[in-house]
Structures are given as C-alpha cells and as structure tokens.
C-alpha cells in the first residue's frame, strides 16, 4: 500500500470518527452518500481504467522520444505542450520519461512545459474529470489552462534561456 492510500484512509477515518461524534444520523448520511457516489460512478470508473490500460499498452514512449529529441526554443515549447497532454500515467511513469528527454538534450523550457502540460491538461485525466465534475466544469477548466504550459515554458526560456 502506498503513502497516498494510507494518508487518504487516515483522512477518511478521521471524518468517520468526527461524524460519529456528531451522532448516528450523520454517520448514516455519510455512508449513504458514499454508497450513492460509488454506485453512480462504478461503471464510469471501470471504463476510465480500461482507457488507462489501453494507453499504457500502446506505449507512446518511443514516439515521444523521437518527436522532441534535442529540440529547443519556441518550437520545442509548442511541441512539448502538445506531448505533455498525451503523456499517460502518474509521476512514477512520467518523471523518468521526462528525465530521459532532458538527458537527450531537451531544453529546460521544454521540460517545464511538458511537466506543466501533463499536470494540468492531461487528456487521460479528463476520463476521471468528466464523470465527477461534468462537462461544463471540465471544458471551462481545461480550456482556461490551455495557454498556461506554453506561458510557463516561455517564461522559463526568457529567464533562463
């Protein structure tokens, strides 16, 4: 079990104890709401995880490496913004890949753009955002963030070259 799971269980446990203190009504309501959310989203979660599975086996690593290579400058930033959106998986998968890109000669600005783009614009994350937050929220958040990785990269390029 990883630390994220342990911390979240601690949070859930404290919330449970707190609601116990509030009375059985609150415990009941909490359980009911948990069950309702789970029931509503179970099928969606299965679908979302199948997407994660496919993206994992399709292994775009090689593709990414050939695309960005020792690219730098503005074109590198634009490309990096695009690649960041496509990168699948959590930090354990993505950071080593970005480290490889950096060693292969990708500039600091491109690397910062990729990290930011993967963090905020990841297409894979949308398969979890859509079910839980609805399409209106997803569209607003995603499109507002579209320029941010590019701006972050441009700032890095201007400051550190």
């Amino acid at each position: 079990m990883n630390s994220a799971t342990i911390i979240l269980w601690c949070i859930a446990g404290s919330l449970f104890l707190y609601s116990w203190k509030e009375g059985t009504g609150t415990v009941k309501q909490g359980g009911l709401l948990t069950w309702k959310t789970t029931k509503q989203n179970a099928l969606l979660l299965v679908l979302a995880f199948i997407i994660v599975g496919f993206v994992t086996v399709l292994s775009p690593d090689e593709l990414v490496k050939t695309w960005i290579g020792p690219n730098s400058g503005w074109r590198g930033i634009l490309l990096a913004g695009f690649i960041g959106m496509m990168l699948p998986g959590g930090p354990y998968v993505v950071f080593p890949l970005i480290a490889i890109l950096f060693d292969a000669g990708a500039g600091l600005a491109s690397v910062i753009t990729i990290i930011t783009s993967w963090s905020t614009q990841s297409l894979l994350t949308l398969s979890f955002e859509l079910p839980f937050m609805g399409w209106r929220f997803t569209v607003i958040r995603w499109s507002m963030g579209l320029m941010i990785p590019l701006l972050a990269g441009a700032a890095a390029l201007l400051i550190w070259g």
Partner: protein
Amino acid sequence: MLSTLKKFQIHFLLLAVIIILGILAYLQSGWDLVQNGFVQGIKILWRELPLLAAAFLTAGFLQALVKKEFINRWLGAEAGIKGILLACLGGGLIPGGPYAYYPIASALLKSGAGLGVLIAFVSAKNLWSVSRLPLEFAILGTTITIRRYLITFLIPPLMGIFAERMFGKRIKNIRENVDL
C-alpha cells in the same frame, strides 16, 4: 430515449475513446494487444481499489459533515480570495491521483463550493502537489524542480480568481451537470 442518452453521455464518450484506442491497439499488434489493454486496465483498477475506497468514503463523509454555513463562509462564491487560498492549500496537500481527488472535488461541488474555489483546488493539486515533490526532486533534480515550482506557483490562485470572475455565475448550471 433522449433523456437516457443525456444521462449516459459520458459513458458513451468514454466507450468511444475505448473503441478508438482498441482499434489503434489492433492496428499496432492485433487482438493480443487489445486483450492486453483490457487486462491492464482492470489490473490497475484492482490495484487502486484501496485508494478508491478511501477517496469515496472521504467524499461521502465530507458531504455529510460540512455544514452549509461553513461552505458559504469558506468555500462558496462569497468567500472570495480567502476561499481560493484555502482551496489551494487543500489541493496542494491532498495525495493520490485523479480518481482520488475528483470524487472529493465533486463532493465539494455538490455541497455548494464556488467555481473559483474548485478550479483553484484542482489546479493546486496539479501544480503544487506536495506528495509528488520528493519524487520530482529525486528524478528530475533540484534545478528543474525548483524552477518549475517558481514559475507555476501563482497559477492555481490566479486560475481560481479568473475562473470565478469569468464563469462564477454559471456555477448553478455546472452543478446541474453532476446531479444526475
């Protein structure tokens, strides 16, 4: 018929993505890879079940516990900058992937949190994430990590403020989206 379609629109969208990815996998290396994709997905889901259970419990009990006055005062549209900063702090500290923090964000949305607060929460999770920090330092090194943090540090609160200014009034419609 139309209401069923509407109710399951996200199911259909995800299904369409699965079909496209399945075709890509088939074209790349045949049925084996298609099967492999399914198996991998279910395996990852199985592995993440303990985290998912904790996330859903947190979301459920959070909804039951937080009082309307607390949300209005701290996380509603009226909470202003104070709410946005609090959301940034929460987002930065919460651990786990999107299947952990979106159920929690969804619970806050249903309980009455404002748009700016929610955008700030998600953006801070994405850009400040404290739990990701040690890994980022270890794999990408000090220089990249510190510069990346410096450059993106103000983005979560700014995104929250702008989102609230531009689309804050639409929060009712946004909330309708999740009250299926």
